[in-house]
C-alpha cells in the first residue's frame, strides 16, 4: 500500500510540474504532455527508476478509459448540437477513420518490407 501511494505521488508531482510549466509558457501546450516528457527524461537520466512507478502506471493504463466516463457523460448536455451536426459527425467518423487507417497501414507495410 505504502509503495502504491509513493507511486501515485510521483505521478501527481510530474503532472503538477507539467501543468505549472504549461501555465508559464507563452503558447498553449498540454500540461499532461509536458509531464509525460519530463517523466520520460527522468527515466532516461535514471533519476526515476521504472520500479518507482510501474504498478500504478500499469493499473492506470489498463483502466484509463474509466477516467473518461464523467466527460463522456457530459455529452448529454449537447444533444441539440449532435442533432444539428449528426451527418458531419457520421461522415467524419467513417470516411476520415477509414482513409487514415488505409493510408497508414499501406505506408507502414511498404516501408517495413523495404
Amino acid at each position, binding site marked *: 500500500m505504502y509503495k502504491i501511494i509513493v507511486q501515485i505521488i510521483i505521478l501527481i508531482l510530474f503532472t503538477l510540474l507539467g501543468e505549472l510549466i504549461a501555465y508559464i509558457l507563452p503558447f498553449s*501546450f498540454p500540461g499532461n504532455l509536458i509531464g509525460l516528457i519530463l517523466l*520520460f527524461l527522468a527515466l532516461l537520466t535514471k533519476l526515476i527508476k521504472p520500479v518507482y*512507478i510501474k504498478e500504478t502506471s500499469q493499473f492506470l493504463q489498463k483502466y*484509463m478509459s474509466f477516467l473518461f466516463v464523467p466527460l463522456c457523460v457530459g455529452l448529454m448536455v449537447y444533444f441539440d448540437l449532435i442533432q444539428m451536426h449528426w*451527418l458531419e459527425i457520421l461522415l467524419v467518423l467513417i470516411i476520415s477513420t477509414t482513409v*487514415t487507417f488505409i493510408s497508414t497501414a499501406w505506408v507502414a507495410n511498404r*516501408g517495413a518490407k523495404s
Partner: protein
Amino acid sequence: MIHILWTIPLTIFIYGIIFILQKKFKQTWLNPLLTTSLILIAFLLLTGINYDTYKEGSQLITFFIGPATVSLALPLYEKMDLFKKHWKLILITIFIGVIVHAITIGLIVVIMNSDTTMLATFIPKSVTTAIAIDISSSLGGIKYLTVTIVVLTGVFGVLIAPPIFKLFKINDPIARGLSLGASAHAVGTSKAIEYGSVEASMSTLALIFTGLMTVLLSPVIYKIIELLIT
C-alpha cells in the same frame, strides 16, 4: 462534495460489469467507456439529476486523467530500443496519418459547410483521449463531444482493421501495430495486443507519437482549414 458518495461507486460498479462482459464476449462495440457513459446518461435522465451534479461528484475520477497520461512515459521508455530501430518508419507513418486525417476532416467540414467549433472538435479525433481533450479545448472545440468522437473512432477503427488488413494484404506486424495506434489510438492498441507483442509495442509508440505530432501540428491545421470555411 456529498455527491461523491454515490457518483464514484455507481460509476465503478457499471464500468466493472461492462468491463467483465467485454472480456467475456470480446465485442468491440461493447466498449466500456461508451457503454458505461450511455447507461449513466440514461440513469441521470430518468432520475432527473442534472449533469453538473454528477460532474461535481466525479471530479476525482477526471483528476486522474493527468497522472494516467503522464504515466505513458513508462511504455515509451521501455520501448525506446524498438523506436531507435524503426524511428524513420514510425515517424513517416505517423506524419502521413496526421496529414491524411487532417485533409479528410478539412474536406468534410468544407463540403458540409460546418463551423469552426465543429472543426476544433474533430481535429484531435484520432488522438488518445487525454491529449485530444486538451487539443479540442485549446482550439475552441467542445471537449465532451470530442471524447465521444474519439472513442467512436477507436471502436470503428478496430472494427475495420481485420478487413483492411486482409484486403490490402497488410501482413507485417509492425505495419499492423502502427496503423492501429495511429488511427484508433488506445482502443486500437487493445486490438493490437490481441495480434501480438510487436503489434502492441508499435501501436503504443504510434499512439504516443500521433498525440505529440497532432499537438504540434493542430494549430496550423486549424488555421488553414479555418481560412477555407470562413
